[in-house]
């Protein structure tokens, strides 16, 4: 199965990505789409800055996608992760998981997001409304725990 994996500064269009994943096919019975958006953190945030490790980001997401493929009977996967300056309300990440039935698509999408958050080399920094550059966002233990529930990590 071919994955679509893209790391880009530009926004993405979920409907267009979904159409491109399912177009011309009749075997897919379920597509689960997860879109991660930039919050304004109660009006405090002017933007998020996302730094990434070019080369490793693509490679690591490819390894995570390959792991998902061994666990669920997937018929297609699209992962798009943005970098650079992202404004509140704008999208950061897209995961599309396609399968014949919903269970595999739901579970694979959740697995992919848990691993993306804890293993894909991206780092967020806050830019605040008062014009100052805020802190680097700290990793959450809850994200590690969410990842651990899937058991053995991909190498």
């Amino acid at each position: 199965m071919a994955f679509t994996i893209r790391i880009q500064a530009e926004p993405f269009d979920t409907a267009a990505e979904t159409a491109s994943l399912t177009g011309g096919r009749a075997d897919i019975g379920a597509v689960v789409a997860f879109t991660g958006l930039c919050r304004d953190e109660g009006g405090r945030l002017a933007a998020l800055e996302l730094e990434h490790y070019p080369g490793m980001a693509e490679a690591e997401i490819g390894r995570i996608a390959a792991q998902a493929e061994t666990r669920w009977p997937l018929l297609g996967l699209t992962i798009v992760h943005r970098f650079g300056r992202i404004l509140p309300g704008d999208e950061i990440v897209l995961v599309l998981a396609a399968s014949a039935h919903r269970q595999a698509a739901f579970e694979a999408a959740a697995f992919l997001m848990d691993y993306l958050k804890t293993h894909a080399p991206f780092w967020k920094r806050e830019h605040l409304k008062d014009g100052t550059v805020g802190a680097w966002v700290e990793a959450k233990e809850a994200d590690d725990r969410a990842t651990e529930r899937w058991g053995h990590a991909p190498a």
Partner: protein
Amino acid sequence: MKLVYFAWVRERVGKTDEQVEVPDGVLTVADLVRWLKGRGEEYEHAFENEGIVRAAIDHVHAKPEARITGAREIAFFPPMTGG
């Protein structure tokens, strides 16, 4: 080998990347961190809590005990916060 740094590790070290010749006896990621900490207070600061900073060897996550022999590029960075 080439070392690359990201996010606050990059800011503390004060550079995005550098080419280094590591001495004999520096065999693992943990050895490399120890050697770097001896090179100046910016490295001391970046690696002050060794349990926090993560490493990758040639674009693959690596544990402190991983061997660095033959590596082209070693990266150091904070825990990831993408998604």
